[in-house]
């Protein structure tokens, strides 16, 4: 394994998340009961997704400035991992919502916002796949990615706070909610965010390397012919 210290850290943090997340004391709250532990799994998916999307935007900007296809590899693969986390986040959120809010989908502004956001990122993948030229794909993809991110943040962070939302910390309350701010929950919550995000980065890292290998092999084949 290349540069393995952070991969070991990933495994360690996730092991800690699984064990401490299930075993440590949590506040006993009505309606939530034991499901409050989903904080370390559901909420962290979204944190991880946002962090990876930021990385993807940074690399999209880098691509636009340098036209180096290596930056595009990073942008697309970090977005791929972020989308996976987003889908897992929305599915786990639906399951959690069924048993706390009473329904899988209650048209909650944050649910709707994140669904629209995910659709925008699906469109990003389709847009990229519809272009055959590598550099054209990378350039249009990068521009779209920057705009998608700029629309995604208000969709999930700003709009739900302007209206009533079932999500804690919304409906006029900015910042973290009371559950996140509890010191015992934070003991697992913060390491969990780092752990899941690093796992996503690891997945992106492996796929970026595969992409570069693939490109080299293709280049070699083309050179043989000519």
């Amino acid at each position, binding site marked *: *394994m*290349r540069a393995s210290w952070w*991969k070991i850290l990933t*495994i360690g943090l*996730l*092991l800690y998340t*699984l*064990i401490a997340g*299930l*075993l440590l*004391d*949590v*506040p*006993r*709250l*009505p*309606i939530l*009961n*034991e499901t409050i532990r989903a904080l370390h799994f559901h909420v962290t998916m979204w944190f991880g997704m946002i962090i990876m999307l930021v990385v993807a935007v940074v690399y999209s900007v880098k691509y636009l400035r340098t036209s180096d296809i290596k930056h595009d590899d990073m942008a697309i693969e970090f977005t791929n991992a972020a989308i996976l986390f987003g889908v897992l986040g929305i599915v786990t959120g639906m399951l959690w919502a069924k048993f706390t*809010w*009473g329904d899988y989908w209650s048209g909650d502004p944050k649910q709707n916002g994140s669904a629209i956001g995910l659709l925008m990122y699906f469109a990003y993948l389709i847009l990229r796949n519809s272009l055959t030229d590598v550099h054209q794909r990378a350039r249009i993809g990068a521009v779209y990615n920057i705009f998608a991110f700029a629309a995604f943040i208000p969709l999930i962070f700003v709009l739900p706070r302007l209206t*009533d*939302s*079932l*999500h*804690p*910390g*919304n*409906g*006029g*309350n900015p910042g973290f*909610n*009371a*559950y996140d*701010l*509890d010191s*015992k*929950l934070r003991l697992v919550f913060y390491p969990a965010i780092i752990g899941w995000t690093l796992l996503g980065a*690891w997945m992106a890292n*492996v796929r970026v*390397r*595969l992409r570069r*290998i693939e490109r*080299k*092999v293709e280049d*070699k084949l083309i050179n043989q012919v000519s």
Partner: protein
Amino acid sequence: MAFSFQAVAQEKIAITEDDYSNSRVEMADVMRSEGKIYVLVGVIVLIFAGITVYVINTDRKVSKLEKLIKEDS
């Protein structure tokens, strides 16, 4: 019921020490006292370990490919 959902969602209720000892709220206390929770933790950790080993192997295979390509060119 609908109202209580609203109240939980909209107000910032600080978590206090009382919330940790509030025995009126039902939790999986029996499962924990019987120690069965450790079985669950064991199962999840084993599955995580298996997936981790697989991912590490995949990572190594990619590293080998990278080396192979470097030597070739």
